[in-house]
């Protein structure tokens, strides 16, 4: 058993729903108890889809458990087929139905429906949403894909043709990424045959092998499928996910090589992020300490963009995608940090508390943590929130995606000169640190006084993360030090505490930590103003 306050991913059947809902003529019949229909609202409310997901639930109740739940399932399959006339059907069980072992696959096959019926085995007590989506997409493609005789070789007499694999319903900016990458491929002279699963039909899946190669956008969802298509039909696929300028350039080169074409000279005409990052007003971004957490694809890409293209310093990164732990660990080594592979929100919170980054690039969950610690935050990855489906065009991928990343990540930060002025005149009655950045309406940090967040950090230390509703937050001056230390060492004097208060709130946590670590290492009992500046000199190197 695992104590969970928030879960990064839903159960695997949600992943199956993301595939079914993305497609145009596939229906999913799920053996599930009453209440599991909540999943519909993920699509109709969070993603604002104007149609119901193509999912039928048996919604059995206690009284059904004594009777024939298998018959209930068969009736549901039959009724769904009659009503929706899908071209292919998925059948499976949610977590509770898995326990009653009715064998949805066998029951559905016994009905002898005249369409392909794919039985899903999604172990809900071991696996999660992305794995479920990947497995569902893979089994659908395995079942449906057929190389047609009409497929012509890529011999220069026609334009090269590719599929785009991975975008699904409820994906983080998938809609816009597909549009951006499709435009990019078109400008390169490559035709897009099928996008799947998003907006694909069962017939589209059948024709997947007819394209020359595959563009893999979301490995969490489509890598297994892309690998199978490569093995089965000799169809190569792209390995670079085009998030950020460098990655997009690599991706363009990869596509050009696979398609045997040359890259147009003006391909980067609309890319502004490189120049924006080089322009002098971006100097203040230099070496900002960032923490990155999310799914593997977005974390690897965001860390690279942060370090190499924004000039930040990646001080910590991690993922909840256990399936891609190795890739994230390898990426983390590039920045000299150890990746946190965990789906435990509390572990992520503890690491952020300990690292005190200046910017968090995370998910909706990290936004909570950021809010509590008054750390700026931008969302880079699912789990998604209604805010992650903006009305405007806001891709993460391609050259426009890099523009969007630049804007999105800079927005929550305090602008360079504003930061300096705040540091110089700290007692200004209007523009003090608790007032927050003026370009964010001046209310951002006021909602949660930085002092309180700071006191919590200190009071709880590294092992016990702070809680939002702690009844009494220990005054900072008497709090236990945040770093491991011997008792009696590193107590703050009143003067030093006051001096610490003059440091801007967004670096104050780091200053406190460094000072305490310094005091601990030097065996200093009483932290004075002198100690504070000695520590500053010691760590500034």
């Amino acid at each position, binding site marked *: *058993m*695992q*104590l*969970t*306050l*928030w*879960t990064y*991913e*839903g*159960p695997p*059947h*949600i992943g199956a729903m993301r595939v079914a809902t993305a497609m145009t003529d596939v229906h999913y019949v799920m053996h599930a*108890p*009453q*209440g*599991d*229909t*909540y*999943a*519909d*609202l993920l699509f*109709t*409310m*969070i993603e604002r*889809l*104007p*149609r*119901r997901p193509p999912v*039928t*639930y048996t*919604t*059995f*109740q*206690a009284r*059904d*458990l004594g009777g024939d739940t298998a018959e209930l399932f068969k009736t*549901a399959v039959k*009724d769904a087929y009659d*009503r929706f006339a899908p071209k292919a059907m998925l059948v499976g069980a*949610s*977590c*509770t139905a898995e*326990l*009653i072992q009715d064998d949805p696959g066998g029951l559905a096959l016994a009905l002898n429906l005249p369409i392909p019926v794919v039985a899903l085995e999604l172990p*809900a*007590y*071991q696996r999660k949403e992305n794995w479920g989506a990947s497995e569902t997409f893979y089994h659908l493609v395995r079942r449906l894909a057929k190389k047609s005789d009409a497929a012509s070789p890529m011999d220069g007499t026609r334009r090269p043709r590719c599929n785009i694999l991975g975008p699904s319903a409820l994906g983080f900016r998938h809609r816009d990424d597909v549009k951006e990458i499709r435009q990019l491929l078109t400008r390169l002279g490559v035709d897009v045959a099928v996008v799947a699963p998003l907006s694909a039909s069962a017939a589209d899946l059948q024709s997947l092998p007819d394209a020359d190669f595959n563009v893999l956008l979301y490995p969490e969802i489509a890598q297994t499928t892309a690998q199978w298509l490569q093995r089965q039909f000799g169809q190569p696929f792209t390995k670079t996910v085009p998030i950020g300028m460098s990655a997009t350039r690599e991706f363009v080169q990869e596509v050009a090589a696979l398609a045997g074409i040359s890259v147009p000279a003006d391909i980067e005409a609309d890319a502004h992020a490189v120049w924006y990052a080089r322009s002098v007003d971006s100097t203040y971004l230099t070496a900002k300490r960032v923490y990155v957490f999310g799914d593997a694809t977005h974390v690897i890409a965001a860390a690279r963009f942060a370090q190499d293209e924004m000039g930040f310093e990646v001080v910590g990164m991690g993922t909840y995608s256990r399936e891609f732990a190795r890739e994230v660990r390898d990426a983390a080594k590039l920045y000299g940090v150890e990746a946190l592979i965990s789906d435990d929100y509390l572990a992520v919170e503890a690491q952020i508390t300990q690292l005190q980054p200046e910017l968090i690039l995370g998910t*909706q969950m990290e936004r*909570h943590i950021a*809010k*509590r610690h008054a750390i700026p935050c931008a969302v880079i990855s699912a789990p998604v*929130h*209604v805010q992650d489906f903006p009305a405007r065009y806001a891709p993460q991928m391609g050259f426009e995606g890099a523009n969007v990343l630049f804007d999105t990540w800079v927005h929550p930060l305090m602008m360079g000169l504003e930061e300096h002025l705040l540091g110089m005149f700290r007692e200004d009655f209007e523009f003090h640190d608790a007032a927050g950045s003026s370009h964010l309406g001046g209310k951002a940090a006021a909602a949660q006084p930085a002092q309180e967040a700071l006191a919590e950090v200190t009071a709880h230390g590294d092992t*016990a*993360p702070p*809680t*939002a*509703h*702690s*009844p009494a937050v220990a005054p900072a001056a008497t709090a236990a030090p945040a770093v491991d230390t011997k008792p009696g060492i590193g107590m703050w004097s009143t003067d030093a505490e006051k001096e610490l208060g003059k440091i801007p709130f967004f670096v104050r946590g780091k200053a406190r930590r460094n000072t305490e670590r310094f005091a601990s290492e030097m065996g200093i009992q009483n932290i004075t103003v002198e100690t504070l500046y000695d520590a500053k000199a010691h760590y500034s190197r």
Partner: protein
Amino acid sequence: MSTVIPIQTAAATGCQTAPVLVERGQREVFCGLTGIIWLHRKIQDAFFLVVGSRTCAHLIQSAAGVMIFAEPRFGTAIIDERDLAGLADANEELDRVVQQLLARRPDIKLLFLVGSCPSEVIKLDLSRAAERLSRQYLPDVRVLNYSGSGIETTFTQGEDACLASLLPVLPRSQAPAPGAAPAQLLIVGTLADVVEDQMRKLLNDMGIAQVAFFPPRKSRAMPQVGPDTVYLLAQPFLADTARGLDAMGARRLGAPFPLGSEGTTLWLQAAAQAFGVPQARFEQVTAAPRARAEQSLGRHRTALTGKRIFFFPDSQLEIPLARFVQRELGMDLCEVGTPYLHRQQMEPELALLPANTRLSEGQDVEKQLDRCRQDQPDLVVCGLGLANPLEAEGMSTKWAIELVFTPIQGYEQAGDLANLFSRPLARKLKLVA
């Protein structure tokens, strides 16, 4: 002035014996775990630990956009394959999780272990676990259990199960002297704090001094219950809780639910009669707020009279709401769906509905959608999974869940309640694109 306001003289009123369309197909409703969303805000020192699957955790965090709370007072102990395979002792695992939780939240005084579909199916005995943990953590923390599983409870029934689980720990009050008036009035069912304060004031002003609310805002302020207690249900989904209170000797006052001016008046009057409040006093206390309620309803009545409304089953509030919109706003009822029809508790409500009302119990969502499209109502009250798709089909909808999360009871909220129905229509008129 009569206490029943003759807003509309229906040709034939009362559908207590009307046929009910009972359906048993796909039910597009929440499970009882969803009640945690408001219960964890109501009882401020309680924590709700769901013992279930990742689906349960995902449901609660998705269902009502509660991700806004940085750290809520609920969580999930997620059962994994080690628990199922018997590799880990589920009880030891639960003890460990509870210990971890209570160390993190020392402010918690009441912990609910909430059963789910998986925990019910694998027959994890949470009542024994709760007893064991209570022995360990009392007097600091009391541990109770109830089931919010979808196989046993529908949406608001989760609150019923939660409140019923609290009954055994309520202090018992004494039997009254024979013939004496009841000593206290208990109001049962979660109400917004502001509504509680208004109701308490009205009742106090009538001379009913001892008024208690259940559930209380703090777990250490549990009301006494016994044969000297009469109670009023503030919510229509509390059948098990009511049965438990009856067994403790408390006496239920039958009344319509306090929705709208008429409902509130009849509800308060049931209390006034039980406590022997003179009619003049009752009139004097309620006249002003009743006039305000009437006034605030007027504007919405103009917009809604003659409009046709269709209720999908959701919270069991549907019948009282249908009575309100039909009698006080002049709307026409296409269909009134309810997940469960408790005839005895609904008796006073059914008596006020038009005789020909189409009532349905349970659901077969596809068939119900067919009927809804056939009816082409002006307004559909439905769950979050159906609202946007129906809007896309050109219908106007009201999310049913908002009716559970908004203060809608009592005189001062009658206009707000009406506004929830008129706003979708007003909005449609406003938007030109």
